[in-house]
């Protein structure tokens, strides 16, 4: 599978990583190289094999649906790049 510049631009957009237009051809070439390496997987006969979902055969533990912690607004906001009046602050998202 060869990735073209348009696909590289789309992947960068989906990944929310800004890539300058001039850097897209190099990115496309790198991604193509990696995907070519992955294409060896097409040699494997996977008929009747289910995709592996859990590493060890165990049932995920359940717990009661109750609040177990809370009241730590200051701790939650302590590392925020921009926190105001008890909230995370971001650029305006609605007009």
């Amino acid at each position, binding site marked *: 599978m060869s990735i073209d510049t348009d696909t590289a631009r789309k992947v960068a957009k989906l*990944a929310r990583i800004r890539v300058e237009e001039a850097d897209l051809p190099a990115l496309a070439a790198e991604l193509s190289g990696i995907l070519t390496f992955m294409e060896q997987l097409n040699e494997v006969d996977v008929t009747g094999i289910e995709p592996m979902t859990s590493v060890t055969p165990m049932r995920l533990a359940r717990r009661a649906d109750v609040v177990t912690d809370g009241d730590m607004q200051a701790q939650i906001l302590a590392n925020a790049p921009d926190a105001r009046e008890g909230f995370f602050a971001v650029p305006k998202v609605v007009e």
Partner: protein
Amino acid sequence: MTGAPMTGPNTWTIAAARDALRRGDITAVDLTMACLTAMDAGDGLNAYVHKTPELALDQARAADARRGPDAPDLNGIPLGIKDLFCTKGVPSQAASNILRGFRPEYESTVTAKLFGAGAVMLGKLNMDEFAMGSSNESSCYGPAVNPWKVDERLLTPGGSSGGSAAAVAADLCLAATGTDTGGSIRQPAAFTGIVGMKPTYGRVSRWGIVAFASSLDQAGPMTKTVRDAAIMLGAMAGHDAKDSTSANMAVPDFEAALTGDIRGRRIGIPREYRIDGIPAEIAALWGNGTAMLKNAGAEIVDISLPHTKYALPAYYVIAPAEASSNLARYDGVRYGHRAKLALGDGITEMYEKTRAEGFGKEVQRRVMVGTYVLSAGFYDAYYNRARRVRALIKRDFERAFADGIDAILTPATPSPAFGLGEMANADPVEMYLNDVFTVTVNLAGLPGIAVPVGLDAKGLPLGLQLIGRPWDEAGLLNHAYVLERAAGFVSKPQKWW
């Protein structure tokens, strides 16, 4: 401090320090001071990226107050902690600019358990950014340097746990924590002549460890001896309700399992690991290791793990896929770096600029590969196919173990440590080949351990890997203990830093 510089208490094993502390031959404060002095004299290795001497001395004083025959094994033992572990109030950056300034408000389960057992933290250790790399060169702090040096070249300590490996090998701590997603404990251990163990998936809690690929990540000990790995794993392991994949199983006494008796055990030698282009010295080392186990009374059995060849490509679909999801949280809102925005920039520009500035090249590459293989139209062709192949790789091991194999012996790495910068112009896939012997273990969720077994012609350490049955870390450690004793590896790097 008594003794010559190279035999100071910082060079001790955990087991020796534990016994000396219990006898009252040394205090935890003096032991910690010796390590802090070595740490400061080791800045040329760039192993420590955030030093915590005040915390270390506070913890050492508390350990001295607790000292006695009933104190836990790790009471007063100075450790280095990989930067991937969240440590309360101490920078925890995963060697990434996107987490610059992040000081967790909480403690990872592993570090909480170690500190609860009386361990002392000397500081945080260098690594590849988000644990993505095999040479420590993707770190935002610059690479850690291998203390082994045989010519003018500076060598990589391996990665991703390169700072941990360098610090243990250079005696800048007694032992260190590492994490292993595709070989990140075992490859650096082999490159630096130390012991590194990845436990069974679910043995050690992942809570509070910055996530890379959640179905592959496991934390483990990086130590000077197999006995130390047994002691330290005992303190790190155990069920944790905060990690839903943590196994609710009792933790055995791993040190007690080191009997040195492996008579009648069956050791598998997988033929698919005889890959093309493997250096003759590594092939010879593998043969020597096989002979050592045979001489100890084990039965050597040729086995086949037919899907081995497909482990690397499967890994490089699955790991980036999981990483792209895990790293979506770095958005410049809740913690870490946020890009400076231009007038009129909205939230999308904030995400895109923040992630472009905060993530290094390799991390960006993997996030984008992961995004691609999970995107509509390719999910089945890449991601689901890789997960099917993963099931086959796991089945290969299950069949070998069902046939009565107790442990599998392989090389740990396809080469000795290489020079820093030597891979700078290589294709990313060439760097990925470092993991060829180790990724299968993560894909199958098995325990694996790297043991130093010899030196190459230039004098650089080489290691072998033992792979165990799921949950049989005790048996695996005993095999490793036999290999370690037979190999008698005692070489240390000459101090030049």
